[in-house]
């Protein structure tokens, strides 16, 4: 019995850990909502207990005497019912007003999260990956990446949301969300991360066969780390160094890959698939489908349809030597 209770507690708590957790509260908006959620929970719990107790008493209490339609004694209790009803009404009015006021101010507070955003980025959803562009007034400082967002801790970011095909939803449970991305429209979200860490975003609107495999890696880091990352992303892609990498480079730029993918500083300039200029610096492959490492990369290149069935990356027939060379080249794009 006691062991079962411990197990149940452990299971319940396991939901509170981790990179994708709506009760994490590492972002301003998420923290506001957790506060509101706690308040609603407390008020509703109190009301639940009062009503539950009242019902239980009514069920178990023994009736004092048989029911008589008109015994001319109802005036004895009517003096108690009146004030009890008034008290009950006051309780409900006060409770609901408190909840309304609390949600109003939470909403105002969330709207003000990024009144003066330092960072502006555009996230465009595609089936089934995220295109991420950091926009600045100076076009030469624009960073283009995919399936990952880096944010400096304590700085507000304004995210412009677009979609290229169907309706998706932008959700980073630990920080904020959700907000829909609608084709032909522009929506927005505000992020204000308060704690450094690695989080996971997830498409929250069913968008097709690979909806579950459409994740987003979020890195919240110190301002210095963020500046370092940003500077490295502004660099053109690393040139192939070893002979094997050069073979991979030649394959990439002369075959199907270059028609869809972009690698800055090379002839590969496709615009319909994730930008791979600094591919190997990311945490995952194919929008959070596989952790980034050479073995997974080789597996993904060789058989995208086996790893992420339905994905728009076609399986390209290639020799084992070619796929190893490609893995070596893509693995060098830090």
């Amino acid at each position, binding site marked *: 019995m006691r062991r079962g209770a411990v197990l149940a507690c452990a299971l319940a708590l396991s939901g509170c850990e981790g990179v994708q957790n709506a009760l994490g509260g590492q972002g301003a908006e998420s923290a506001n909502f957790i506060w509101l959620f706690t308040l609603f929970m407390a008020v509703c719990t109190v009301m639940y207990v009062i009503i539950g107790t009242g019902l239980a008493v009514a069920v178990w209490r023994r009736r004092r005497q048989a029911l008589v339609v008109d015994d001319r004694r109802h005036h004895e209790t009517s003096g108690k019912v009146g004030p009890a009803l008034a008290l009950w009404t006051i309780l409900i009015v006060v409770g609901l007003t408190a909840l309304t006021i609390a949600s109003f101010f939470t909403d105002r507070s969330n709207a003000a999260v990024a009144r003066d955003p330092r960072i502006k980025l555009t996230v465009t959803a595609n089936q089934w990956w995220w295109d991420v562009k950091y926009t600045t007034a100076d076009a030469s400082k624009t960073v283009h990446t995919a399936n990952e967002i880096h944010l400096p801790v304590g700085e507000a970011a304004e995210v412009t949301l677009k979609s290229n095909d169907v309706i998706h939803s932008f959700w980073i449970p630990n920080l904020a969300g959700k907000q829909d991305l609608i084709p032909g429209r522009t929506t927005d979200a505000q992020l204000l991360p308060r704690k450094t860490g690695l989080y996971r975003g997830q498409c929250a609107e069913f968008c097709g066969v690979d909806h579950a495999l459409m994740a987003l890696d979020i890195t919240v880091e110190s301002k210095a780390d963020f500046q370092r990352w940003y500077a490295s992303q502004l660099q053109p892609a690393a040139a192939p160094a070893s002979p094997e990498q050069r073979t991979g480079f030649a394959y990439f730029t*002369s*075959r*199907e890959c270059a*028609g*869809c993918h972009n690698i800055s500083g090379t002839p590969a300039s496709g615009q*319909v698939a994730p930008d791979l200029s600094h591919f190997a610096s990311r945490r995952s492959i194919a929008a959070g489908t596989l952790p980034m490492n050479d073995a997974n990369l080789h597996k993904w290149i*060789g*058989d995208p349809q086996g790893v992420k069935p339905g994905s*728009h990356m*076609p*399986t*390209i*027939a*290639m*020799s084992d030597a*070619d796929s190893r060379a490609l893995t070596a080249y893509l693995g060098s794009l830090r």
Partner: protein
Amino acid sequence: MSSHFQNSLIALAMVAALSGCEREKRQDPHYPIPKTVPTISPDTIFPGNGKLPPLDPRAAAFERNAAAIAEGQRLYNWMNCAGCHFHGGGGMGVALMDGKWRYGGRIDQIAASIMEGRPNGMPSWKNKLTDKQVWQLAAYVRSLSGQVPKDAVGARADELSNTPPQTQTKREPTPSADSAQQ
């Protein structure tokens, strides 16, 4: 039911099932296509009594293959063919869903047009797309004018469309290149 009749029914069903193989055939990932494939001949105009050469043997792998046509449709949208040709109706570029082909409407002729480019704005996609992708695109373009059997084309377009699905597209004749009245 006699066993003879039963056997012939089974044989008939097996033949019918086999006919679906061509439609669904995928390129085997274990047999990579070579890096250099012979380029498509740009000579697709045969004036006077010129005769068309026999159909390119590679055409068979793409012409009525559902996977190739579907991939071609993706490429059509991704490579912004719709920017000029729209979804077949034509605009800045020529219409692709009618029976008029300035440079020939056979799949190898369409592939040559994509590969080499054509005067008045059609760019060459050589070195931008691989030969295989050009063939896939040609297979899709060909399907726009109803040249492809209904069992191979998609029943629903990838894009928003106000035209009937390809399974209901009218079959347009494909006159030879030199008889086109344009």
